[in-house]
């Protein structure tokens, strides 16, 4: 007797294996999933844009002969000592505590070799990073862990953190297993307890207060340091405008692919906007205020290569910032630790339990044995190499578009592969002269 034909077992798109595994995990533990990193979901991104390159109407620059400048100056609005960088790629704020001391040192070494800046994080300034970072941006965060006027004065710039792309509107939590004696000492808290980072600053509320706070910071530091304001990708037009109103020299705009040391997965994946969607509204705000290029815009969140850098600049940014990519360059999620990632229930490339402090690569940990795995000199060289490659890639594209400075890249150099990207970047859909929302259509 013939067997009745059957359809193949069909997995639900809505209730995928991944979704079901999270339901089971939640049911077993009663607590939401916490992890590091940024949004992992597919969102419209720089990959959805293409450069047009030179054509009859534009001529290119010779790749191996003609100069294409990359230098950028940040903080020209009010600061006596703006920051001069050789490349338009900076290292984003990541805390000591979240990262090991050698990792902070490696970031400083790599950035300095490449001619750019690093940034402290929620936990104060360490000697490792100050000593090895020629240009160091000091973050001024709601927790104020480790905040002191001496470090403020020896910083090269100050970044007031209002939000970050992974969790706009959220604070943070550094779990007790990463709170060693040194980390606890810097934060004035007991060893081994969970350290909460507040979501709001303790002594100001809103842009009117922030303007006065910035006045205080400038008065303490003799108006020398550029003041950055970092915002998460939430309402980029208004947030940028208000940051300018509050007196920012530089606006740092972090989209939802930007990483965090740890927060709820639901927060990372469901709050905030993709980086691509944030840039044009922020640039528009600067242009409407007559402040584009006078207040510099630094964009972060999912920058991976020189093409991403070039696209961010073409859309109007003055520089970009990298965090996750810099950690990967140092050695994070390297397949050479695959067996150890497997032992942790994950695999290289997917490891994101940075808050647990068991990082096989020795980067997101305070475990002395694991920390020793990272050679800060060699890791710094890898970061330098990576930054150099990104810069060369960005120059390659800029030359192909006929520009002798990467800042001369412009939206007219771009087209979009998808309707969503066209709408967000406000550049034409490939093969058309149209994008959704374009005036006159």
């Amino acid at each position, binding site marked *: 007797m013939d067997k009745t034909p059957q359809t193949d077992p069909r997995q639900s798109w809505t209730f995928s294996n991944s979704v079901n595994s999270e339901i089971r995990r939640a049911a077993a*533990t*009663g*607590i939401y999933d916490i992890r590091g990193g940024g949004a992992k979901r597919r969102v419209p991104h720089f990959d959805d844009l293409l450069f047009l390159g030179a054509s009859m109407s534009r001529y290119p620059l010779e790749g191996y002969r003609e100069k294409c400048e990359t230098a950028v100056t940040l903080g020209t609005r009010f600061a006596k000592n703006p920051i001069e960088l050789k490349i338009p790629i900076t290292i984003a704020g990541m805390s000591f505590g979240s990262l090991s001391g050698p990792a902070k040192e490696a970031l400083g070494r790599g950035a300095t070799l490449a001619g750019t800046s690093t940034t402290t994080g929620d936990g104060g300034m360490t000697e490792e990073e100050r000593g090895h970072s020629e240009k160091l941006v000091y973050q001024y965060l709601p*927790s*104020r862990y480790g*905040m*002191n*006027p*001496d470090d*403020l004065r020896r910083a090269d710039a100050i970044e007031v953190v209002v939000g970050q792309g992974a969790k706009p509107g959220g604070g943070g*939590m550094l*779990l*007790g297993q990463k709170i060693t004696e040194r980390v606890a000492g810097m*934060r*004035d*808290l*007991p060893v081994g*307890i*969970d350290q*909460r980072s*507040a979501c709001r600053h*303790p*002594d*100001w509320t809103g842009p009117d*207060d922030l303007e*006065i*706070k910035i*006045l*205080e910071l400038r*008065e*303490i*530091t*003799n*108006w020398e340091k550029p003041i950055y304001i970092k915002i998460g990708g939430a309402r980029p037009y208004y947030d940028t405008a208000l940051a300018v109103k509050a007196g920012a020299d530089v606006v740092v705009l972090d989209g939802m692919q930007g990483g965090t040391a740890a927060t709820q997965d639901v927060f990372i994946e469901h709050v905030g906007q993709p980086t691509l969607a944030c840039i044009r509204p922020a640039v528009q705000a600067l242009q409407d205020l007559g402040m584009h290029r006078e207040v510099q815009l630094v964009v972060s969140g999912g920058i991976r290569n020189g093409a991403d850098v070039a696209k961010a600049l073409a859309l109007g940014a003055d520089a970009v910032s990298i965090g996750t990519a810099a950690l990967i360059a140092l050695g994070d999620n390297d397949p050479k630790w695959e067996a150890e990632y497997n032992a942790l229930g994950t695999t290289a490339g997917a490891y994101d339990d940075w808050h647990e402090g068991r990082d096989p690569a020795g980067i997101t940990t305070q475990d002395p044995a694991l920390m020793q795995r990272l050679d800060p000199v060699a890791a710094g060289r890898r970061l330098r190499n990576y930054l150099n490659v990104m810069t060369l890639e960005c120059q390659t594209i800029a030359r192909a578009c006929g520009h002798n400075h990467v800042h001369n890249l412009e939206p007219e150099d771009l087209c979009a592969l998808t309707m969503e990207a066209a709408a967000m970047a406000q550049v034409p859909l490939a093969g058309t002269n149209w994008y959704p929302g374009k005036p006159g259509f």
Partner: protein
Amino acid sequence: MSTLDMSVTPLREVNVTLQEAAKSQSNNAYEITNPRGSHAVAVGLDGPLSVTVKGSTGYYCAGMNKLATIRVEGSTGPGVAENMMSGEVVIEGDASQYAGATGRGGLLNIKGNASSRCGISMKGIDIVVHGNIGHMSAFMAQKGNLVVLGDAGDALGDSLYEARLFVRGTVKSLGADCIEKEMRPEHIEILQELLARAGADAKPEEFKRYGSARRLYNFNIDHADEY
């Protein structure tokens, strides 16, 4: 005694003068007249210096002070002595919100009342308030001592860590994880010394001590209802 008249001297010049005098370790005395609610007066001083402000100030007076003694003969706006490292700041009048926020050392002596969030996120500073304090004071307070001769508002010490809170009057309500604790001899001693330094006419035995129950130190889903 040198005088800086803010009706004719810009804030920048006032602060530069004071900062350089403090740095020179001159131990000089300055008087600031006509502050008229100016913000960021006498901020970032780093050295022994005596400053008297003749009038009321705006936000962040004496911010991040180190070693200097600053006396305000008036009231202060939000964030007085924020992130103070050491030295002494005395307010003869009242202080607005966030007095002594995130302070890491020194003594903030408020002769009048302090508004909400007094001592928020304090990290080692000692604060003595001769009057009352507002709601959410000592929120997430990490270290140091907050002494209140009057009453405390709602949610005192919410989510606090290891700071010690001493209140002589009533407490409208305690915040999450803040409890009344036994006043032991070592606490009487600390309080005695602080009251003496602040020139407060009160006896340590009249106070109650509040501190962290330490139930929220490590995240536990069973405590979610307490937030």
